[in-house]
């Protein structure tokens, strides 16, 4: 009985936890509630993923109103996978947040932080699970508005400007999305994603539908920070509180990628996206530009947080590159990289949060000789950095493997060479950390000997371990991604 309600509970529990945390007004109690809600959602997401793998997609009619009139929650191979990623990262970041946020925020604001955190988690999970295009917009705004607040909580005053810029660009992105949905609604009279998919093929080549595709593409590209629409991202990640950066970097852009995938392949279908409009070519060109320019810019950053933020823009380029291939291996690469990059960047930003706590900031002048002061943190960054590069034996390698496979399969050898070659730039920016931490002599700015508190180090190392685990055992990650890719390509052919 309760099991049948899981699709609703996975969103509702963090959503209800938010006002509870607000009413309690105590930092510790709010934290406990937020953590419990995130852990519950993670468990529920795992159960749902198990159910989907066993018996196929789950359709849940919210309030028993049958779709397409009522709002449908739909868990299939793709959304179950993204749910596991988002709730998993939320459950790992929540324990980390206790010490990290307490050090970065005034005591009397702590409960507000956890309120916003719960709202953001609920919004992102809702975006993933919903099967209704307008409901998706509402959840998108819940997630976005709470993340603007979370970013503005950063200690540096530049966090305020970063949050403002993200608010403006994020709102434009969301509004573009809702314009696209509006045009689709005008043409089909439905908002249910599955219903849209069934009604669109007959009118796919009409101008409003193509305009809708363009609006949704631009809107979601803003949200997922596709080059050159990434301008909000580096500042937002650099000045937000550490826990927020780790959570948003690992989940927010990934969920936007999920929405783009959903619309491209489930709603519009491969035919419209690939043949009527040249979306793959546009995506490929922008992805390559993202990978090359953002990686190069990352190499020259003065702070580790900004470096990793630019690296995020580049890594999103790999994901959209896989979408641009629009083949089974390409999509598998995109979906598995969405997951692998989520855990890798999550691990890195959590470890950087530990450094920021001990050293006051993560600028490179504070990192000199860090390996002696914080050996475990430094080692973690190196291992997760290897995953960022895509060294065999790490999660990053698995994603690049599928991307190269997709490129070779399409006969685009230059693209395969580019995927491998661009990893060398990632070597350059990861090397900057190694050089500073392991090869340089400590200076007065280097923190004294001592690791970050256990409550921060343990969640970070959990994700570092996941980076290695998913490099060897791909039975969950790559297998789920492959099933998602088959679903996306099959669903679009109707």
């Amino acid at each position, binding site marked *: 009985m309760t099991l049948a309600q899981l699709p609703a509970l996975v969103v509702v529990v963090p959503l209800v936890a938010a006002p509870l945390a607000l009413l309690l007004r105590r930092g510790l109690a709010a934290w406990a509630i937020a953590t419990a809600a995130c852990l519950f959602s993670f468990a529920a997401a795992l159960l749902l993923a198990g159910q989907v793998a066993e018996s196929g997609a789950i359709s849940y009619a919210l309030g028993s109103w049958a779709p397409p009139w009522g709002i449908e929650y739909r868990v299939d191979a793709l959304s179950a996978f993204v749910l596991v990623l988002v709730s998993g990262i939320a459950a790992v970041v929540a324990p980390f947040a206790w010490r990290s946020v307490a050090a970065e925020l005034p005591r009397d604001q702590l409960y507000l932080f956890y309120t916003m955190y719960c709202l953001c988690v609920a919004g992102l999970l809702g975006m993933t699970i919903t099967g209704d295009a307008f409901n998706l*917009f509402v959840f998108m*705004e819940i997630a976005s508005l709470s993340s603007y607040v979370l970013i503005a909580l950063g200690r540096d005053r530049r966090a305020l400007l970063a949050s*403002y810029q993200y608010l*403006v660009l994020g*709102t434009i992105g969301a509004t573009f999305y809702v314009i696209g949905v509006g045009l689709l609604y005008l043409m089909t009279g439905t908002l249910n994603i599955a219903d849209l998919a069934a009604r669109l093929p007959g009118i796919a080549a009409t101008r409003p539908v193509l305009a809708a595709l363009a609006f949704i593409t631009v809107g979601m590209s803003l949200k997922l920070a596709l080059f050159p629409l990434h301008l909000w991202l580096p500042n937002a990640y650099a000045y937000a509180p550490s826990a927020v950066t780790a959570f948003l970097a690992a989940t927010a852009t990934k969920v936007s990628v999920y929405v783009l995938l959903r619309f491209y392949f489930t709603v519009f279908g491969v035919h419209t996206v690939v043949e009527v409009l040249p979306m793959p070519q546009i995506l490929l060109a922008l992805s390559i530009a993202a990978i090359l320019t953002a990686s190069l810019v990352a190499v020259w950053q003065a702070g580790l947080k900004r470096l990793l933020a630019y690296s995020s823009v580049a890594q999103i380029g790999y994901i959209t590159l896989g979408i641009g291939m629009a083949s089974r291996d390409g999509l598998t690469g995109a979906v598995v990289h969405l997951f692998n990059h989520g855990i890798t960047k999550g691990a890195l930003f959590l470890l950087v949060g530990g450094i920021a706590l001990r050293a006051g900031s993560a600028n490179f002048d504070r990192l000199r000789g860090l390996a002696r002061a914080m050996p475990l943190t430094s080692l973690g960054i190196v291992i997760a950095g290897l995953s960022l590069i895509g060294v065999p034996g790490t999660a990053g390698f698995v994603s690049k493997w599928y991307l190269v496979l997709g490129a070779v399969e399409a006969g685009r050898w230059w693209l395969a060479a580019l995927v491998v070659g661009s990893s060398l730039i990632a070597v350059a920016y990861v090397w900057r950390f190694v050089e500073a931490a392991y090869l340089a002599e400590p200076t007065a700015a280097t923190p004294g000997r001592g690791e970050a508190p256990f409550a921060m180090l343990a969640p970070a190392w959990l994700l570092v371990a996941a980076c290695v685990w998913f490099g060897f055992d791909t039975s969950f990650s790559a297998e789920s991604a492959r099933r998602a890719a088959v679903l996306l390509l099959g669903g679009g052919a109707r």
Partner: protein
Amino acid sequence: MSALGHYNYWVTVLLMVAGLYIVIARSNLVKKLIGLSIFQTSVYLLYIAPGKLVGGTPPILAEGFRLYSNPLPHVLILTAIVVGVATLALGLAIVVRIREAYGSIEEDEILEADR
């Protein structure tokens, strides 16, 4: 006739572009938010106008009510208005904080202050 017959779309497009232009062209943070609000407002019109039929009544199931307007866009836009108000409120709150931190709400002066 056909171009004028869709004049609601012309108004929508005008508001949309005007709003977006203000966001891009103004450096005053409050004016940018006003532009953003106008931009969002255009979407309300995009949804609501096609829901109205000439001579259409509210959707009532009874004798004498044949032609009725689609009520769903209104409900959707009610939600979108709430979202728009929340965005504007949060944006203005952030501008207040920016003014406290920088003593200015002109974007170029703020960027200059952090240089």
